[in-house]
């Protein structure tokens, strides 16, 4: 049976890869960044059960790494896809990590030694923590292999790093290889599954909320890192500049989402994750006031409405039907004021908040259009990948043999992404089985 190419190592890609591997199919899992895990790895808890996100995902990530049928290609991207269903030939560009994966144990001694240590914003924590030029993207990264940031490494950039290369000296196993080159792989695969997930809309352009300018305005994803026990603050929410915990928090929903000039669609998960995030505040600091500003409550999944009701009644989370017009700051105390129209009176009302969390729109990945071109598949009007029939073929892209899973197809939550991934895996398997049958008959 032919192999399958899975593009994207988030929860959807992982699920599709594991499903196929369990069926005995060899899978190439291609991930652009140095580690698989995707967005789910960055979340603190999941709704509505409040399970620890990484605790659920990490075993699956490890299974991917250990599975005899799965080959991980991290720091890699697909650059061409020739042929057709059953007999694709994919070209994968594997960027050099400059670390020999067979020797590196991920001990971190190189990171400690790096001259750039603590000077480069860490992508995983949205810059809330700083890393070195050689680094492990996050604690539970898979593969547990260090990566050198070519653009930041002094030696790779300028051919010189002080009087000696400290990381190389620190590495006891001689794993660091500055001469490592990018590789190009040609893979023969029967089917392709695309699961490239989403990006976050940068809210800095929305001046009304002051993101990037006001210290205590955070995005929801930053908040996930801040409230996470393994995050940059060890799970403590800190208000600038006092570093005390917040007494009052405001969550603003639909920031750039359901906005005709930005992302007109509903991201489908923000009502629920904001509820979860507010409940988390209450669990950490029961006396902290939490207000969620939303236009409509979209609690459509099983147990979701009940979860919101619990947030409201048991935890005392306040929901206000409004989109705030502006967030302003007291320049002295850095305390924030949220300006909104009270839906009951029609008057402008304010609330004071120590931290404001913005539920920014979740948009198709920046590389979607380029990948669509490489794969020869179509996008819809919102730049999600298009399915041939949203009712009856919810995983089939416009190119036979290429299947879609997760947020890159349309907004959806984790369980929906996982379900679609299993669906895509099953469809990919059909192609392989058909091809194998055809070959046997020939």
């Amino acid at each position, binding site marked *: 049976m032919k192999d399958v190419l899975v593009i994207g190592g988030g929860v959807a890609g992982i699920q599709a890869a594991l499903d196929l591997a369990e069926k005995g199919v060899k899978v190439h899992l291609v991930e652009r960044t140095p580690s698989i895990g995707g967005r789910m790895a960055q979340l603190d808890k999941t709704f509505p059960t409040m399970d620890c996100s990484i605790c659920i995902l990490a075993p699956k990530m490890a299974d991917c790494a250990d599975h005899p049928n799965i080959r991980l290609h991290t720091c890699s991207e697909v650059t061409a896809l020739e042929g057709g269903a059953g007999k694709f030939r994919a070209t994968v560009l594997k960027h050099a990590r400059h670390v020999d994966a067979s020797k590196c144990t991920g001990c971190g001694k190189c990171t400690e030694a790096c001259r750039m240590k603590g000077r480069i914003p860490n992508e995983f924590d949205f810059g809330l923590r700083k890393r070195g030029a050689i680094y492990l993207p996050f604690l539970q990264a898979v593969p547990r292999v260090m990566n050198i940031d070519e653009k930041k490494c002094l030696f790779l950039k300028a051919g010189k790093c002080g009087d000696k290369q400290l990381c190389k000296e620190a590495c006891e196993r001689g794993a660091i290889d500055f001469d490592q080159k990018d590789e190009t792989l040609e893979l023969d695969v029967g089917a392709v599954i695309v699961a490239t997930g989403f990006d976050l809309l940068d809210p800095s352009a929305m001046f009304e909320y002051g993101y990037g300018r006001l210290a205590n305005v955070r995005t929801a994803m930053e908040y996930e890192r801040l409230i996470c026990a393994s995050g940059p603050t060890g799970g403590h929410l800190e208000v600038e500049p006092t570093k005390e915990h917040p007494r009052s928090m405001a969550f603003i929903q639909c920031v750039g989402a359901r906005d005709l000039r930005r992302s007109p669609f509903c991201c489908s998960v923000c009502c629920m994750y904001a509820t979860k995030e507010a409940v988390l505040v209450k669990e950490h600091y029961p006396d902290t006031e939490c207000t969620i500003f939303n236009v409509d409550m979209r609690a459509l999944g099983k147990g979701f409405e009940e979860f919101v009701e619990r947030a409201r009644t048991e935890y005392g989370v306040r929901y206000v039907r409004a989109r705030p017009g502006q967030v302003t700051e007291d320049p002295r105390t850095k305390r924030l004021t949220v300006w909104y*129209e009270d839906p009951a009176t029609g008057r*402008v009302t304010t609330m004071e908040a120590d931290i404001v969390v913005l539920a920014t729109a979740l948009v198709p990945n920046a590389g979607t259009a380029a990948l669509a071109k490489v794969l020869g598949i179509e996008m819809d009007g919102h730049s999600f990948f298009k399915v041939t029939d949203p009712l009856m073929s919810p995983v089939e892209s416009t190119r036979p043999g290429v299947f879609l899973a997760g947020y890159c197809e349309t907004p959806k939550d984790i369980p929906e992404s996982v379900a679609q991934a299993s669906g895509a895996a099953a469809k990919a398997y059909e192609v392989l089985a058909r091809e194998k049958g055809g070959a046997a008959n020939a």
Partner: protein
Amino acid sequence: MTAEKDAPVESTKAYYCVECGKCTGICPVSRGLEYSPRRMVKRALEEPGPEVARDGQIWNCLTCKLCSEVCPSGVDYIDFIRLVRSRAFSAGLSGSCSQGGQLNTLARLMAADSLSQNRNFWTEGLDVARDGEVMYFVGCLPYFDTVFDELKPDTLDIARSTVRILNAAGIRPVVSPAERCCGHDLLWSGNADAYRALARRNMNEMKRLGVKKVITSCAECYRTLSQDYRELGADFDVRHISQVAAELLEQGKLRVAASDRKVTLQDACRLGRHSGVYEQPRDVIRKIAQLVEMPRNRSAASCCGVGAFLTCGAHSKKIQLERLTEACGVAGTLVTECPKCQIHFKCALKDKALPDTKSLDLEVIDIASLLARSLEAGKR
């Protein structure tokens, strides 16, 4: 109901409103007066027809466009207000004009057939033409110095400076003695008929003179000529003096002396949010002074507090005071790009009822005046 009846709702896509209230949450007027853009739209949606025009609150809007800038539904709220006001005006209603209607009356007078204006007395010593392709549209500057006599706004310095800048680059602009008010204030206070009469007169005059390019020194003239006249069939190119100056400086056609004085810029709503011109005035300032931004700049800029000379009152003064304080926090000079912003700010600075303004050490100057001074300095 007919389509005509609900023109304000239809053409501005007000029906896209999701009643989120974001507009009200950012509206500078709502923070002081009984006013909610969201409720205005809701009224228009719930009671189609002329009812909403009877709501006196429609005159409170500054038409500064901050609401539309953040509206997730893209409702063109200021155009909605313009159309509702037009309907109100037709029903005999009007807002209270802050100068006792004087400016509105002047504008209406200018719409008359026989009119003898002495509007070019200030051009003495400057090189201007009687006809040609490039026109400097002076607007109401010759009138402002008289109307606002006690404020000493010296708005004619803006006109002189504009011509000096053009002359310095070898441009000899047409300045027409038959020019009329562009009609901006009439258009935004509902008097669409008088506005159209003014517009047609100006357009005919420009045609007669063979004008292909119009330069304004007023942000309101700029918006009106470039957008609203276009709707009436105008096809000439319109540029604000800051745009022209930015190009001339870029081409090395103006010799200026750079100063290290710190200045900040008031983005006029008509030039900024209405027309998307943000960078060229900044390009000009950077060549002649140290530009420092206020926290609220470009599309986030605060309004000067009065629109179309309607509803100036205590709350307008509060908006102005806030803005002047913001400017003072970063610079000693506030540069304006619209003579009206300048008049309103100078008015607030001289207002004895505002004790706080005493502590504001701030010079307010138009971008054309600032550049012309720098040209003088460049000669030495």
